[in-house]
């Protein structure tokens, strides 16, 4: 990889200096306090807060969003190289050479995430007020959602890996609570557990990476680690990168830790929107981009990131193309889109701005798509099977319009956001100039086609064709508290991409963090043109299959590839046969050894002592004279022994 060497030299230079925050930015901890306050009040307040709980639960994220806007405006006032600001909150750990401060870092990268999390998050929260209106657990729901938001904000604001890890774990906990929110449904409880365990595997990777950083650099702060990453040997850096990648795979549902994402659809729909758009799955991408200086120095680790991204991109797309459950089809789409972002991150500094750009655009349209799916379920008695939808465009006009906007954005029709965001990713992959770059870029191109296929399929199965509704279904438009957030998200999906990409706004904004300045603003590239052609072809194919022909109400029998895709490409089966069954054998063997071996030994000793003492006990007869006799005999023996010893 000759290209990567040049990248490495530029990367060393981009260790940006972080200045102390001044003015309004000094109160950056407010971002955490707002949602955390709501979570604490709602979760500890109990039933007393039932009546106004959701209002507080919406107000706090909105307050955080307003503060984020103020901090953002202040940041824009600084010149580009002084925008990274640091707020020290308190000294957390001080043990000899190991010192960790809870510090928050406001820079170009974290502010992007903060705005996305609080902005899109607030819209999802507002939507939830209507969606969860009839749920007895609405207050608890808002408590968990705020906890989720607070954890995610801690994750992106942390200025060192240990605090990041705290947020990372908080996100895992909150996702567990929310996916299993309807824990009376066994499927939801299992899905929550699965998400938690799959994440745990990734968390182990991240914690090992942090330990490795501490042993190598003696510090876990971003500033310390990124100051001179070249001090570590290439092997250590690669190991660090791969461990970070493992962590990212867990949170971002990338291969091989992808299986939890589809099951996570058991949670309420706003949770899916929050997990897929604003929080959780974006954390992995953030981790990779934030750890850029490490990946810059290890071509192998970057290659691994790109390969994982490309594989997941195709994997998720294929699954999404076969699912009849609208939420699961969208979940497959999320896997695929996050795969794009990982792929872009794997390209190196040139890919970071595009990974983040796609991430932000994706935040809008994926949240919109999920909330639309929620609105459809709301009107269709919680039906999720797209084979029972059909012809909804006339009864749900607002939902249809917003869905169509997000649809255009995700498949990448110009001038909507997906086009700019995605094509730059593909272009960046090709620009790497190596064979792997070409392979990965081609995978991304095919992925663009598949995206068009499954999204067109969802669109036609849901909104067009014959009405295949259940007999008691009376679809109706959702209340305004649910439609307005979706409308805003739809507008964002339409406009945001052009805004961020035209004139390379986002790439320039992120430049000081990513260490990459775009050479020439290139809107229409060859790769983009090919992608557009593929998008149209695949879209037409999907229309031929699902738009022109009637959709059967039950899934028709299908050949091996479709069956495999319906079964998540056997992801669960592979996990089960490779990990679960051997694991169970191992535990059974350990239990057997423990019962027979360890316990057997201990129990035998105990049984021998118990049996012997049970017999000896009989000596204690209660007859004083027999005691006297034994004392007498003992005395005689003693005297006899003494006499013998004398003689």
């Amino acid at each position, binding site marked *: 990889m000759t290209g990567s060497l040049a990248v490495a030299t530029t990367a060393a230079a981009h260790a940006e200096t972080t200045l102390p925050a001044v003015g309004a930015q000094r109160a950056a901890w407010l971002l955490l306090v707002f949602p955390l306050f709501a979570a604490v009040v709602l979760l500890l307040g109990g039933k007393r807060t039932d009546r106004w709980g959701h209002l507080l639960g919406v107000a706090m994220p909105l307050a955080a969003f307003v503060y984020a806007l103020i901090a953002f405006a202040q940041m824009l006032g600084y010149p580009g190289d002084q925008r990274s600001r640091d707020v020290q909150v308190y000294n957390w750990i001080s043990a000899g050479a190991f010192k960790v401060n809870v510090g928050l870092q406001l820079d170009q990268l974290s502010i992007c995430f903060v705005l996305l999390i609080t902005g899109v998050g607030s819209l999802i929260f507002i939507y939830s007020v209507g969606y969860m209106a009839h749920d007895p657990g609405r207050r608890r729901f808002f408590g968990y959602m705020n906890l989720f938001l607070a954890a995610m904000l801690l994750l992106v604001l942390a200025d060192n890996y240990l605090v990041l890890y705290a947020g990372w774990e908080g996100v895992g906990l909150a996702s567990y609570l929310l996916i299993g929110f309807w824990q009376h449904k066994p499927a939801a409880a299992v899905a929550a557990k699965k998400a938690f365990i799959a994440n745990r595997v990734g968390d182990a990777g991240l914690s090992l990476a942090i330990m490795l950083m501490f042993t190598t650099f003696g510090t876990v702060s971003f500033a310390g680690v990124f100051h001179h990453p070249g001090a570590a040997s290439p092997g250590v850096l690669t190991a660090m990168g791969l461990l970070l990648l493992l962590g990212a795979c867990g949170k971002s549902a990338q291969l091989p830790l992808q299986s939890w994402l589809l099951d996570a659809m058991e949670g309420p729909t706003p949770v899916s929107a929050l997990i897929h758009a604003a929080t959780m799955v974006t954390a992995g991408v953030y981790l990779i981009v934030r750890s850029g200086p490490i990946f810059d120095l290890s071509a192998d680790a970057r290659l691994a990131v790109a390969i994982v991204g490309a594989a997941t991109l195709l994997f998720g797309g294929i699954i999404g193309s076969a699912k009849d459950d609208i939420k699961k089809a969208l979940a497959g789409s999320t896997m695929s889109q996050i795969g794009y972002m990982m792929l872009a991150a794997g390209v190196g500094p040139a890919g970071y701005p595009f990974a983040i750009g796609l991430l932000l655009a994706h935040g809008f349209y994926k949240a919109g798509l999920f909330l639309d799916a929620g609105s459809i379920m709301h009107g269709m008695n919680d039906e999720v099977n797209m084979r029972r939808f059909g012809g909804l465009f006339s009864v749900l006009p607002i939902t249809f319009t917003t869905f169509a906007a997000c649809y255009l954005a995700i498949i990448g029709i110009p001038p909507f956001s997906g086009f700019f965001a995605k094509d730059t990713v593909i272009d960046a992959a090709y620009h790497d100039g190596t064979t792997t770059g070409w392979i990965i870029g081609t995978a991304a191109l095919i992925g663009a086609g598949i995206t068009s296929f499954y999204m067109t399929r969802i669109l036609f199965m849901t909104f067009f064709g014959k009405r295949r509704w259940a007999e008691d279904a009376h679809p109706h438009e959702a209340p305004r508290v649910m439609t307005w957030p979706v409308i805003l998200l739809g507008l964002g999906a339409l406009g945001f991409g052009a805004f961020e990409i035209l004139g390379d706004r986002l790439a320039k904004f992120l430049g000081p963090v990513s260490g990459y300045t775009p050479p020439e603003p290139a809107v229409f590239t060859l790769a983009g043109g090919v992608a557009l052609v593929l998008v149209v072809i695949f879209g037409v194919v999907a229309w031929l299959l699902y738009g022109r022909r009637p959709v059967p109400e039950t899934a028709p029998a299908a050949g091996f590839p479709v069956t495999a895709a319906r079964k998540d490409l056997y992801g669960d089966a592979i996990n089960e046969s490779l990990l679960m069954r051997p694991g169970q054998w191992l535990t059974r063997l350990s239990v057997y050894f423990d019962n027979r071996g360890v316990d057997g030994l201990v129990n035998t000793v105990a049984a021998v002592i118990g049996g012997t003492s049970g017999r000896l*006990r*009989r*000596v*204690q*007869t*209660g*007859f*004083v*004279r027999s005691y*006297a*006799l034994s004392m*007498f005999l003992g005395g005689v023996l003693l005297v006899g022994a003494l006499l013998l010893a004398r003689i």
Partner: protein
Amino acid sequence: MSPGNFVALAVVLFVIGAVGVLVRRNAMVIFMCIELMLNAVNLAFVAFARMHGNLNGQVIAFFVMVVAAAEVVVGLAILLAIFRTRRSASVDDASLLKY
């Protein structure tokens, strides 16, 4: 009279006491036998003190007497309590405290 005779008497008294403790059932008699054994030992102590011209044995005899007196007080109190509840002074009857 030679001190050896006192020792022989002490042995005889001790054996009588010991046999009495082992074979008799009446708690009162057992007490008396124990006293007999204690006093046999006292006699032996005094005799040995005389034989060796050492006062230690005589001092110990006083100690034994004190201990014996205390023991009798406690023992008789227990005996009285048992007799009040069971109307019997047989040690074989008071055998509840066992395995």
